[in-house]
């Protein structure tokens, strides 16, 4: 699914604009960055309510393609600055986490495969 589609499905507002035509492989939703580092797949989108710069650092390390903040949370200025530097698009959606996940899942976006991770532990 293209990032552009995801933005329109969640009625998102683009905070850091970068290549919205990029393809998103799957989604990871969490406020725990350690979890994200453990199961997020490359080219995925991270859905989170956490707003600090570590969200962007996590995306950078795990090759996550975009970050979507839920519940209308606008991230800190430092977070936005870091995302601009790293070329990682940031989007904010008004809807809460459950609603955002529901809409995207219904539209066919898959989850980064946690069971696969557990099986290999």
């Amino acid at each position, binding site marked *: *699914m293209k990032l*552009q589609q995801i933005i329109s499905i969640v009625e998102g507002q683009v905070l850091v*604009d970068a*290549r*919205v*035509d990029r*393809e*998103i*492989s*799957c989604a990871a939703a969490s*406020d*725990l*960055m*350690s*979890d994200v*580092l*453990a199961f997020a*797949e*490359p*080219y995925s989108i991270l859905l*989170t309510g*956490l707003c*600090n*710069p*570590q*969200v962007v*650092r*996590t995306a*950078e*390390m*795990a*090759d996550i393609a975009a970050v979507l903040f839920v519940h209308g949370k606008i991230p800190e200025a*430092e977070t936005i600055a870091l995302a601009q530097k790293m070329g990682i698009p940031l989007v904010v959606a008004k809807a809460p986490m459950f609603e955002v996940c529901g809409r995207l899942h219904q539209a*066919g*976006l*898959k989850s980064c495969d946690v069971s*696969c*991770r557990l099986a*290999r*532990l």
Partner: protein
Amino acid sequence: MTQVTRLQELLYEVKIGEVMTRKVIHVTPQTPMAEIRKLLREHRISGIPVVQEGKLEGIISIEDLINTLAESAMAATVGERMTRNPVTLREDEPVVVAINHFATHGYGRYLVVDGKGHMVGIVTRGDIIEGLLKKLEVEYHEEEIRRYRVSHIFEDVVSDRTSIILRYDIVARDFKHAGEASSNIKQVLTRLGAPLEVVRRAAIATYEAEMNIIIHTTEGGEIEAEIQAGRLILRAMDRGPGIPDIAKAMEPGFSTAAEWIRELGFGAGMGLSNIKRCANEMKLESPDQKRTCLEATFYLDGKKQESPPRAESGERPPDPSN
């Protein structure tokens, strides 16, 4: 919105002054019209700029010449017959401005002036294409040379054991700079041409180790990345307080982190098991239970993978059907 190509960026970066032709035949307003006929024919051009003390006064074209002939006014000077205020471009404008002009007006060339209105050159479509191609060629060569240099460093340098060591001091509780060391190490590995999948695993492990030092230590510590031919050895060393029960610390979900750290998105007890999962080999020691030494090894050739979970996903392009 589509992805901006390097060529599109260049249209804004490259200035007209960089691609224009500087030597331009020109005349003065005092030049007799009789001479214009000769100049146009000799140089096979359709117009000549008229310049007085460096300043562009106008342009004299074939059309002006024909009109002068028709009116039998060949005794006149250029100044009396020229077209005043020709459309000009400024040398400090990006080439995209010139391209827009070529697209909207039908002219084949534009005179270029500096900030004071002095003529400095002339620009055609051909000049722009040639200038952009040269720029792209230079950039391509620079990138080629840079790639060659980094990827061959281990072959070119002769020693029994060559390695590059990157060291970063990590300050306890310094969340502001958290991740900078990992970011730098990731960039170096990418530069050195390590497979993307290995770079990703190493970056995640380094970041976890860096966060551990920031969150759990009292005195901070050091991250060291030693890159050898074919392998990366990551060392995270701190000066306390140490880990009393290493086996327990390795259990996924076990954490001693305070609530405020969890609020920052860390301290879920996944860090060490995540590092182990990402690395090809891992050693964790806490001598005297005072300090902690973590050593994780990554095989950069990507061949000797023993247990690289999700390793294959690193280079897999996203499935468009998702």
